[in-house]
C-alpha cells in the first residue's frame, strides 16, 4: 500500500477490574481516510478512543498517532487530534461563538485568530445565525454541528468522533454526513468514527473495523468484508416469483449446495447456500415460466456483514464458555 499510516495501535488492552474492555487491539488508520469503528454498545469503542487521546491509560500495548505516543505525549497528541465525544456539551450560559473562542484560547490561539476561525467555522457548519445565542438553547443537531466546529478550532490532523450521528433527525443526519465527508475530502483530515449506526457509516467510511466484546473481528473496506463473508461459504438469495408455489421450492432444494430454503409471509423465498447459485435459480425461473418480481443476493451491505460478525463473535463466545457441539458455523479465522 502506498498510503502512510497516521494512527497505529499495537496490542492495546484496557482492563476495568476483571472486565477486559479492549483486548489486544491492532489497528492501523491511513492518512486522510475515514475509518469507521463499528460495534454494539459496550464493545469498547469509547474506551479505545479515550486511550488514543491519552484520557485513559492503557493496561497494556501502545498507541501512536502521527508518531506520538498517545499515553506519554498526551499534550502533543491532543494538539493534533480533535475529539467529538458522544454526549457533547457546551457551557449553557455562553453563546456558541464564545464557546468556540474559549476552545481556541485553551489551544493557545491568539484572540484575532480565534475570532476569524470561529466565524469561518460557524459559517461552515451553518450556525452563523445562531452563533450569538446561548448554547443552552441549541437543539441536539445544532449542538452536534457546534461540536464539529469546536473540534476544528484547533485545526486537527486527526478527528475522532464518538457516535456523531446519535439522536439526529434524518435531514440533520444528511447534512452532518456531508460535513464529515468534507472534512476528509476537502481538508484531507483523517477521521475515526465510532458508531453502532451502520447505514450512516456505510455512506462515509473508506474502511471499517468491526469491534465486538473488545476485539477487532474484521477490518477492511466494506466491499472486501462482504466478499470475505461469501468466501467463507455463506450466501443468501432473496427471490420473489409469481406464482409462489411449492414446486419452485422443491426444484431449488434439489440444487447442489443449497442448505435451506424458506418462505416468509409475503411470499419471498430465502435461499441459503454454500455457493453462488444465482445462475441455477434463474434457469429454474426461466424454464418453469415463473415471472420474476425480486432477485437479490444478500451480503453486500454492512448490515449483514455486521450481523454475521456478531453471530460469529457470539458463537465463539459460546464455544469458549460451553464448548458445546453441533455448531455448524466455523469461527472467524481472522
Amino acid at each position, binding site marked *: 500500500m502506498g498510503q*502512510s*499510516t497516521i494512527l*497505529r495501535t499495537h496490542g492495546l488492552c484496557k482492563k476495568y477490574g476483571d472486565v477486559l474492555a479492549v483486548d489486544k487491539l491492532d489497528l492501523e488508520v491511513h*492518512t486522510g481516510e475515514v475509518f469507521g469503528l463499528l460495534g454494539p454498545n459496550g464493545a469498547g469503542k*469509547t*474506551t479505545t478512543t*479515550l486511550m488514543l*487521546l491519552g*484520557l*485513559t491509560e492503557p493496561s497494556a500495548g*501502545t498507541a*501512536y498517532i*502521527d*508518531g506520538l*505516543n498517545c499515553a506519554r505525549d498526551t*499534550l*502533543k497528541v*491532543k*494538539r493534533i*487530534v*480533535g*475529539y467529538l*465525544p458522544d*454526549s*457533547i*456539551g*457546551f*457551557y*449553557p*450560559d455562553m453563546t456558541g461563538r464564545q464557546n468556540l473562542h*474559549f*476552545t481556541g*484560547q*485553551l*489551544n*493557545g490561539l491568539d484572540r484575532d485568530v480565534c475570532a476569524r476561525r470561529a466565524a469561518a467555522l460557524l459559517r461552515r457548519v451553518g450556525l452563523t445565525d445562531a452563533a450569538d445565542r446561548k448554547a443552552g438553547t441549541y437543539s441536539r443537531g445544532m449542538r452536534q454541528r457546534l461540536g464539529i466546529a*469546536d473540534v476544528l478550532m*484547533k485545526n486537527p490532523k486527526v478527528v475522532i468522533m464518538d457516535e456523531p450521528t446519535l439522536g439526529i433527525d434524518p435531514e440533520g443526519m444528511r447534512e452532518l454526513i456531508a460535513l464529515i465527508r468534507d472534512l476528509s475530502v476537502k481538508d484531507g483530515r483523517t477521521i475515526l468514527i465510532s458508531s453502532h449506526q451502520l447505514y450512516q457509516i456505510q455512506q462515509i467510511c473508506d474502511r471499517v473495523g468491526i469491534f465486538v466484546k473488545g476485539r477487532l473481528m474484521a477490518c477492511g473496506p466494506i466491499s472486501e468484508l462482504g466478499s470475505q463473508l461469501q468466501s467463507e461459504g455463506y450466501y443468501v438469495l432473496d427471490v420473489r416469483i409469481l406464482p409462489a408455489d411449492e414446486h419452485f421450492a422443491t426444484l431449488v432444494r434439489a440444487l447442489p449446495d443449497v442448505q435451506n430454503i424458506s418462505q416468509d409471509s409475503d411470499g419471498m423465498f430465502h435461499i441459503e447456500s454454500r455457493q453462488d447459485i444465482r445462475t441455477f435459480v434463474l434457469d429454474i425461473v426461466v424454464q418453469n415460466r415463473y415471472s420474476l418480481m425480486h432477485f437479490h443476493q444478500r451480503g453486500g451491505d454492512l448490515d449483514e456483514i455486521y450481523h454475521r460478525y456478531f453471530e460469529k463473535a457470539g458463537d465463539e463466545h459460546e464455544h469458549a464458555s460451553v464448548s458445546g457441539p453441533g455448531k455448524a458455523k466455523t469461527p472467524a479465522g481472522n
Partner: protein
Amino acid sequence: MNMHQFPALAKQKRLQATEWLRLHVAKPRQDTGAAQHSGMVALYKKELADHLSSKRFFIIFILLFLTSTASLAGAISNIQDAVSQSSEFIFLKLFTTGGSSIYSFATFLAFLGPLAGITLGFDAINNERAQGTLNRLASQPIYRDSIINAKFLAGATVITAIVFSLGLYVGGAGLLLIGVPPSMEEVLRVLVFLVIACVYLCFWLALSILFSVICRHAATAALAGIAVWLFLSLFMSLVASGLANMVYPLDGMEGMFNTASNYGMELALNRISPYYLFSEAASTVLNPNVRSIGVVTMSQIEGALAGALPLRESLLLVWPHIVVIVALAGIAFAASYIVFMKQEIRA
C-alpha cells in the same frame, strides 16, 4: 517507537520537522510551556468570569454584606461600653465587638464565611461532568490538573475579593462613624486577620471541590459540604464536651482531679474543627489583650503585668493554628487533586 518499522512515518516526521521550522521559528511563542500556560490562564479567566456573573455569588455577597453591616451597627452601639473598659485598640473593637443580639464581624466571618467557600466550589467538577463539557475540556491540549487548579485559583481569587472588600468596608465605614484613626499596628492586625480568613475560606472551597469531585450530583456535594460545615461549626463543641465528660467525669470526688484533663481533652477535640481554630486565631490576632489560649495556672499568672501583646507575640501564640488552617486547606485541595487525577474522564 522503532522508526525502522515505519519508513513512511519516519519520512513524514522529517517533513514535519522542516514544516515545523518554517512555521515556528518565526514565532517562538508556540512552545509547549507558553501554550500550556495560556490554556490554564484562559480557563482561570473563564471560571472567574463565571463566578462573578453568577447569581449565587451575588446572593452570598449580599448576605455577607448585610451581616457585616449588622455586626458593624452592633459594634458601633456597644463600642462605648467596650471603650469604658479599655480605651486601647478601638479600631480593632469594630471587628470583635458584637451587639446585644448580634455577633461581631469576626464571628460572622467564621460562621458564615464557609458558606461562601462551599457555594463557590460545590459544583466545580460534577457540573462539568453533567454538562458534558469535562471530556471536551480534557481533550484540549492542557494538562488535566490545570482544570482543577484553575477552578481552585478562581475560587480563591473570588474569596480574597469578598473577604477584603468586606473587611475594608467594615473598617472604612467604622472609621467614618467612630472617627478614631487606627494605628499602624491595628491596620497590620486587621490585614493579618483578613489573610487568615482567606485561607480559612479556601479550606472550605477546597473541601467542597473535593465533594464535587467525589459526588456525581451537585446537590449531593452541596449537602455534604453543608453537613460538614454545620457539624464542625455548631455541633463539634457539644460532641467535644460530651466526650470529654464521658472520659473524664466531673462528678464527685474524682471530678476535682479530672478538671484539667477534662478541659484539655475538650479543647483538643474542639481544635479539630477549623471553625474553632479560626475563631481562636482571629480573637487572638484582633485582641492584643489575649495573652494566652488554653489553660493557665495561677502560678503562671503570678507576677505577670497586664498589658497588650505586640503583633509578633500574638502571631506566635496562634502560629500553630495558622499552620494547621493552611495545612487543612492544602490537604483538602491535595485530596481533591489526587482523586480528580485518578478519576476516569468518561461519565
